[in-house]
């Protein structure tokens, strides 16, 4: 018997389920990271900024689960992850070094409805990424382009050196409505006026949308990076409620 509640508003509870994904392609991105495209039947698409839990099972049955941001967005069963290798990690070295086309991994998601951008949003958007923190921001940039959104986008991308950029060629392709500022912490190409160094309040004041235009701000990266940036944004006058963060932690 079908109750009224079930017919009216109960969506299938598919989010908490594990799906089997098959690796379609991989591409090196940095010396320690790569992107992985998976075909995940039943995934059903995701919003820009969401993440997935990836579960690996060893031959002895031991399981490890880690969360990874999704670099793709849209109503498709194709999911692109981009993963940086943590030297002592349980999962990321396997994903970066060993996983091959045709291999299977389990995914749960799409997860998290908070750190997301949708084309219905019209306000200016400031993206600030540190290292592989670019990944969910890349999904937003792609969603912005795919939807021909008129919302102005700016990206501040902090990374060690030019060789450490994820999605460099895509980010260097001029895109209407997207402005990209590269900030290098260790090695800066010759000719750039800014000395290598971690992101500072001056960088934010010089290159980010000002608080006066009330941008939506998304900050993603290692925990220390995110806390430095979030505190500096609030000190510059940004409304804390408009600043959304996603920290990686140290594992």
């Amino acid at each position, binding site marked *: 018997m079908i109750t009224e509640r079930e017919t009216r*508003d*109960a*969506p299938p*509870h598919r*989010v*908490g389920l594990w799906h089997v994904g098959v690796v379609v392609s991989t591409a090196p991105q940095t010396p320690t990271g790569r992107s992985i495209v998976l075909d995940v039947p039943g995934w059903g698409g995701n919003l820009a900024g969401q*993440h997935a*839990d990836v579960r690996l099972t060893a031959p002895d049955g031991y399981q490890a*689960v880690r*969360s990874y941001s999704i670099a793709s967005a849209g109503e498709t069963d194709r999911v692109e992850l981009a993963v940086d290798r943590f030297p002592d990690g349980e999962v990321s070295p396997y994903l970066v070094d060993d996983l091959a086309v045709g291999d299977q991994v389990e995914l*749960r*998601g799409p*997860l*998290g*409805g*908070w*750190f997301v951008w949708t084309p219905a949003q019209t306000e200016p958007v400031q993206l600030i990424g540190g290292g592989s923190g670019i990944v969910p921001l890349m999904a937003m940039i792609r969603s912005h382009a795919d939807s021909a959104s008129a919302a102005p986008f700016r990206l501040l991308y902090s990374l060690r050196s030019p060789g450490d950029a994820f999605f460099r060629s895509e980010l260097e392709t001029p895109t209407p409505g997207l402005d990209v500022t590269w900030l290098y912490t260790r090695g800066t190409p010759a000719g750039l006026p800014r000395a290598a160094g971690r992101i500072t309040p001056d960088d934010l004041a010089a290159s980010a949308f000002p608080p006066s235009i009330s941008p939506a701000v998304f900050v993603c990266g*290692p*925990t*220390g990076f995110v806390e430095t940036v979030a505190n500096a944004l609030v000190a510059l006058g940004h409304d804390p409620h408009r600043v*959304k*963060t*996603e*920290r*990686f*932690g*140290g*594992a």
Partner: protein
Amino acid sequence: MPEPVDGNALAGPLSELFSADLTLATGRCLGCGDVSELARARVYPDPTGYVVRCSQCDDVLMVIVEEPDSVCLELRGMSWLKVPR
């Protein structure tokens, strides 16, 4: 102590238990009265689960203990949790 992540990270573990996305729920901290989305909390993963702390006063809002055949939610630090539907 490991570095914290955001409440966003709870979306997966809590999706095993609830059909709603609880990271979008707003909770009131019993310690300081702050009202924030669970996504804004600070989450400390550990081998047995997660300790969830208030981003304003650092009091413990919630502890999630994962066991092979059950998940225990200890909700000691929230006076309420408002879940959008």
